[in-house]
């Protein structure tokens, strides 16, 4: 039972982070290597909100998440917008630069010290015993529920509006997308905003559960393969990818050797990808048609 709980919590964490990669990749074929840092910035925003105001915890978290959405939009407006139409590679590198910038800024603004926003918010995190005897901390439960809600919302948004298709169209051929009346700027801004928002929610919940320092960015990077195995432009894929990787990790830790938990998931990912080269649900990007 505990095993299942562990898997679900880890999978939810990965999934919540990974959907940020998917959103941005989908609209622009850009791998956002600053996702981990943006997620970290979201969590640090909570630190500031918590220390600067006496808001109730839920409001503070909401405010920080909303701010992070703004951060994402700003990143697009001031940065990525200028790279519209440039090769994806240049944009990827720009995100590397952004990541470095953010890591520097975080140390500058918040210092490299470990932070505990839960404490300053006075948020308790008691474990809850589930029916099967497994235990889960309140915040982990919140994380699982949030992931569910975020995915539900995104699915609905992308399915019932045409935005899902337009995002993929913009990713494949921005010029043609614009010529078909799609507002590239708007769609990119939405993607960046949402991506930073979901990433930050993950960052905030992790920080509340177990503290925050600059290694948070690395956690973000760990979720990249998860998005990859599912297919870089598929949300369903990242959900499933998260489940696969989380299961592999937890089972390895439990029954084999915890040391392998860093390595073996990659081999599993590779096996999955060899069977389905564009990820489980990803769309084939290079067609062999001549």
């Amino acid at each position, binding site marked *: 039972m505990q095993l299942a709980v562990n898997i679900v919590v880890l999978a939810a964490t990965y999934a919540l982070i990974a959907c940020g990669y998917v959103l941005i990749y989908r609209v622009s074929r850009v791998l956002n290597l600053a996702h981990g840092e943006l997620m970290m910035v979201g969590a640090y925003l909570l630190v500031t909100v918590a220390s600067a105001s006496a808001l109730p915890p839920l409001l503070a978290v909401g405010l920080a998440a909303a701010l992070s959405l703004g951060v994402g939009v700003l990143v697009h407006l001031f940065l990525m917008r200028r790279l519209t139409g440039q090769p994806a590679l240049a944009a990827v590198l720009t995100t590397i630069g952004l990541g470095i910038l953010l890591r520097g800024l975080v140390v500058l603004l918040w210092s490299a010290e470990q932070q505990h926003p839960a404490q300053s918010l006075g948020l308790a995190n008691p474990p809850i015993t589930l029916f099967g005897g497994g235990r889960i901390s309140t915040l982990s439960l919140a994380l699982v529920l949030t992931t569910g809600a975020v995915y539900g919302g995104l699915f609905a948004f992308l399915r019932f509006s045409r935005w899902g298709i337009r995002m993929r169209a913009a990713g*494949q*051929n921005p010029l043609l997308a614009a010529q078909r*009346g799609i507002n590239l700027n708007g769609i990119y801004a939405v993607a960046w905003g949402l991506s930073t928002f979901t990433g930050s929610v993950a960052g905030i919940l992790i920080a509340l559960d177990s503290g925050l320092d600059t290694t948070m960015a690395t956690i973000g990077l760990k979720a990249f393969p998860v998005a990859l195995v599912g297919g870089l432009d598929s949300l369903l894929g990242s959900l499933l990818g998260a489940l696969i990787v989380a299961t592999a990790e937890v089972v390895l830790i439990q029954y084999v050797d915890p040391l392998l938990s860093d390595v073996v998931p990659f081999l599993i990912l590779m096996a999955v990808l060899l069977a389905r080269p564009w990820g489980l649900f990803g769309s084939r990007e290079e067609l062999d048609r001549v």
Partner: protein
Amino acid sequence: MIAPPLLTLEAVGVTYQRSIVALHGIDLTVQAGQIVAILGVNGAGKTTTLRAISGFVGLDQARVTGGCIRHRGTAIETLPPHLITRRGIVLVPERDKVFPNLTVAENLAAVVTAAAGTAERRRREQLVYEHFPRLAARRSSEAGLLSGGERQMLAVGAALLCGPELLLIDELSLGLAPIIVGELGERLKTIRSELGLAILLVEQSAAFALQMADHAYVLENGRVAAAGPAATLAADTDIQRYYLGTAAGERRSYRDGRTRPGACQ
């Protein structure tokens, strides 16, 4: 006071990569409901003209460096492509004309139809499938897997869905079977009169283009070399010979070799 023409280009210049000048000042007018053809040899700047009208997004590092493009009197050369499309000026590009990883249906769904309700949208989609039954059959296959001609149909269909007032078509007959070219020509004429559409057409087959169009421009090296009503140009043997490679009524066999030595220069 008379209403301004649908589209005017005044001394439009375009430069690629900050140094390659592709257009040296083009003047061109399209009146509402008119079909206008642009002719010219390869590299004359036909595609560039259409792309300038439909707007750049920094790809190819192309830039409108001079002149003015007006749509009903409003300057549009600085507008982003999606706003130009929403004004009703829609391009069918020469290459990369579909989203290869989207299915045919998704390609159509991706189109933003400015100010058209769901019902209207559905009607237009229906229209596209009616015009191009082959697309209906391939509705759920990825556009990248379509044959060359099917892609062309899809591109025209998607453009029609945008609800155009002015359709810019680059290389209409490219890769299309004769029967389809003929049909498409007829269809466009019908659509034109039904919807009051204007069409700006780039076409290699001068005969076909001049037969379709009301008015035509011949480009050479980024400049307008000749312009006039299509019938006049079609009758002008000098123009036929110098710019379009063949004189009207003349039917020379390809076996007879070339009209001039050392081509392609």
